[in-house]
């Protein structure tokens, strides 16, 4: 007999409703997270500063002795203000303005780290746990509290949410992220006390003191893990998202964080082995090529691997699986977008105009990156004979405008304003290449299921790349777009099972949607032939 008759009667009474606001666990999680974030922010202002020439441990490796000598007039003096300490350092070591800005920043960072006195210098572990530890724990608790809700699409109240619909909380979050990136990229010396909290863990993993990039890499990975937990819970009914999220966490933790740290630990050139050119725009820069070529077999391996990855593996895998294998399974930028950025995916613009802007911008960045790389390689092989100083200036411009401002400040800081894929959609030159491969020759396609579409708009609304998926779905047309990163959310949110991501024979990807005009003439033709 059918199993339906085995239902027990107790199944046919209303369950306790799992909706119902903020559970105690969620509230505790939120409070811990906020306390952690507040502590993290407060660390920037914690402690005072004193240059002790006898105790310049970290700086002695990074700052030349003749620069350190110039510090004697201010040595021993205690500064309560970070700004005054920095001003004092600057006027001592760079009175004649002879130090390059970049170099000056590095000197300041390491001098400030040694000069730090107070709670963080005394107890870096404690402050690390009170900030990063509490925020992470809080974040995990906050999301774990959802574990008893029924599995299914969890998009209730998104457009009523201040955080997720550009309300005041969203604006504040975006602003915080933007300020964080500006400090990180261009003013890390103001960040020294916060960086110092990371010293013990950096020493443990890399046997090196922490710098701003270690802090960034650690927080980046932690964020993907914590927000990955959220994805695991949100999509526990959907294996595609579970496996994809696990992949993202694996590549971020293993490839982007741990392996490069270990390479540093063993004094080798360090590289994120999955970071392909031209997203990794410094790969062919002369300093990197020199470093790799002067580091023996390991350096050579990195050079060969990086080249094969970019030239062979990226197009090959994109042919096999579409852009998604990289953009939403492997990439770090994509990984952050798919975890931290997931709550903001609906904010991407779906208009035709945005699509036009997207195509112009992303391909311009690609052209820029290609020109820069050609100049770098020509310059490297010709010993600077052809482009000379220009290469350096082009590199500087690209690093500043694209590498830092676009990919970082805008790329992440704009999540709460323009959605989670602003960089991937409008700026990433690797995404541009992958997109061209995906469009021209790939097995990847999103197919549509007959006439089932009810034009509801969930697919388009939740497409982070701003593709108007519904436009295709409602006319039964397969979706093949450069920008699609194959995140699979359109298929997940569809209430009628219309969309499916597939790898098929590339020649069978394009289903021609016959306009009735065409159908009509085909029918007439058939009639004529029959007659």
């Amino acid at each position, binding site marked *: 007999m059918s199993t339906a008759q085995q239902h027990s009667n107790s199944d046919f009474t209303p369950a306790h*409703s799992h909706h119902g606001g903020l559970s105690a666990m969620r509230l505790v999680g939120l409070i811990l997270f906020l306390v952690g974030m507040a502590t993290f922010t407060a660390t920037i202002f914690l402690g005072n500063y004193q240059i002790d020439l006898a105790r310049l441990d970290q700086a002695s490796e990074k700052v030349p002795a003749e620069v350190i000598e110039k510090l004697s007039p201010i040595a021993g003096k205690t500064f309560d203000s970070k700004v005054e300490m920095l001003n004092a350092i600057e006027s001592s070591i760079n009175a004649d303005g002879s130090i390059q800005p970049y170099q000056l920043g590095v000197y300041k960072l390491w001098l400030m780290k040694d000069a730090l006195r107070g709670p963080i210098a005394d107890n870096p572990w404690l402050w690390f746990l009170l900030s990063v530890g509490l925020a992470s724990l809080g974040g995990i608790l906050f999301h774990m509290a959802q574990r008893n809700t029924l599995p299914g699409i969890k998009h209730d109240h998104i457009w009523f949410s201040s955080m997720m619909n550009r309300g005041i909380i969203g604006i504040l979050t975006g602003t915080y992220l933007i300020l964080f990136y500006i400090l990180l990229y261009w003013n890390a010396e103001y960040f020294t006390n916060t960086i110092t909290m990371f010293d013990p863990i950096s020493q443990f993993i890399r046997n090196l003191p922490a710098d701003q990039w270690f802090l960034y890499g650690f927080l980046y990975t932690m964020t993907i893990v914590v927000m990955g937990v959220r994805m695991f819970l949100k999509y526990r009914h959907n294996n595609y998202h579970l*496996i994809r999220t696990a992949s993202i966490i694996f590549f971020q933790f293993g490839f982007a964080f741990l392996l490069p740290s270990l390479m540093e630990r063993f004094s080798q050139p360090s590289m994120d082995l999955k970071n392909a050119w031209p997203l990794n725009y410094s790969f062919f820069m002369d300093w990197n090529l020199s470093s790799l070529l002067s580091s023996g077999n390991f350096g050579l391996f990195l050079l060969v691997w990086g080249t094969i990855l970019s030239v062979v593996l990226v197009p090959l895998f994109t042919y096999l699986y579409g852009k998604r294998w990289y953009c939403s399974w492997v990439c770090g930028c994509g990984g952050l977008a798919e975890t931290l950025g997931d709550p903001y995916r609906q904010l991407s613009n779906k208009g035709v105009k945005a699509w036009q802007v997207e195509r112009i911008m992303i391909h311009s960045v690609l052209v820029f990156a290609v020109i820069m790389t050609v100049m770098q390689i020509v310059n490297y092989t010709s010993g600077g004979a052809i482009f000379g100083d220009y290469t350096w200036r082009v590199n500087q411009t690209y690093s500043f405008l694209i590498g830092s401002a676009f990919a970082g400040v805008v790329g992440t800081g704009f999540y709460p304003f323009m959605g989670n894929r602003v960089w991937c959609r409008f700026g990433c030159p690797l995404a541009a290449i992958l997109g061209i491969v995906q469009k021209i020759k790939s097995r990847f396609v999103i197919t549509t299921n007959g006439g089932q579409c009810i034009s*509801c708009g969930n697919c388009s609304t939740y497409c982070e790349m701003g593709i108007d998926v519904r436009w295709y779905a409602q006319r039964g047309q397969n979706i093949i777009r450069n920008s699609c990163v194959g995140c699979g959310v359109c298929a997940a949110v569809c209430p009628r099972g219309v969309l499916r991501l597939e790898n098929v024979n590339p020649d069978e990807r394009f289903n021609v949607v016959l306009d009735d*005009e065409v159908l*009509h003439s085909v029918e007439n033709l058939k009639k004529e032939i029959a007659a």
Partner: protein
Amino acid sequence: MAHIVIIGNGIAGITTARHIRKRSDHHITVISAETDHFFSRTALMYIYMGHMTYEHTKPYEDHFWSKNRIDLLRAYVNAIDIEKKALSLGDGRTISYDKLVLATGSQSNKFGWPGQDLPGVQGLYSYQDLELLEENTENIQRAVIVGGGLIGIELAEMLATRDIPVTFLIREEWYWDNILPIEEAKLVTRHVYEHGIDLRRSTNLVEILAGDDGRVRGITTDQGEEISCQLVGLTPGVHPNIDLVKDSPVETGRGVLVNDYLETNVPDIYACGDCAEIIVEGEARNRIEQLWYTGRMQGQALGRTICGERTFYERGLWFNSAKFMDIEYQTYGFVPNRPREGDAQFYWEDEGHRHCLKIIYNQSDKVVTGMNVFGIRMSQDVWHRWLKEKRDINFVMTHLPEANFDPEFYKAFEGEIIEAFNRQAGTNLQPSRQPGFFQRLFA
């Protein structure tokens, strides 16, 4: 160049307009009192739940209409002057037409319950109903929904997302068992309870009670119970909206009567979508099709007819789909709610009661005639092919994996299903070999 006026900017009216534009240069005007632009009625629930805003529910950007020279007019049509071929609008204007399409949609059913017009009592069909629902559900303690169809369960899901306790009265023993066979109806019923909905089965509304403020304060049921509530959602189905033509020469029955070409008895006046009642010669009951899909297909056929190519509207093989809270549903062919003479059936349900498959086939020649599937996505093309080719149950069972349309990496139930069928039928069918994971990776 004729002036085609379409009353109603839902899926039927808009599809008609688009298809007229595709094949002609006629002047097209679409009139609606509901909204400025076409939106997806099926998505109203998502606006209330916060999944989307109204803007997201518009299938075309606003510039689409002027680009395609489809004039949109926001107005209420008071009357049709058939002699003069003119419409008089609510704002006093008149507008003339050469051909008129009635695509006026539906209205919510009300069955003469005492108190059915009280403030706080409403249906859910139009954009205005949604706005009203926002007002009516502000700070309320409980809602009662009356009528267990697709809109009722959607309304229950909507209210639950706002943490409003819901009592849901259905006259059927199991949810929608006037359409669904018992097993499927039980599966959905269980799911409704799982969501914390207070579902009252085999229960009818008797009276809606007014409070001192004149608003609804509760209801009484035929089980003798009084339930206090501040909202009553009436969702016992919809009927064609024929207010405009009821007292005109255009013939009406339950809906606007049309032939298979969607023509009314008055030349140059047509009807399509929810409001149309298609005359079925030799049958006691005419067809009224109130689905998104049929509205779209009728619009396509009517577009051709109006452009001079008189087209018989053919619904084709029946299909429909819905989502009951978290469980998706598809149906192809015909599945009666109670077994018919000569029918055999196969039913499988998973242990978690979230997935099931029902297949109806002829006892004699084993040809499959219909299916219901819950919680597994299946390909419409494949099922239509099987039904058209009159495949038998053994063929369908063997090839079942080919119909799967679930996302990658989903658990496949086909093995379990075929095993269950073998047990029931005493057969030893094996699933057709599907390419394995690695074969698919490198196919």
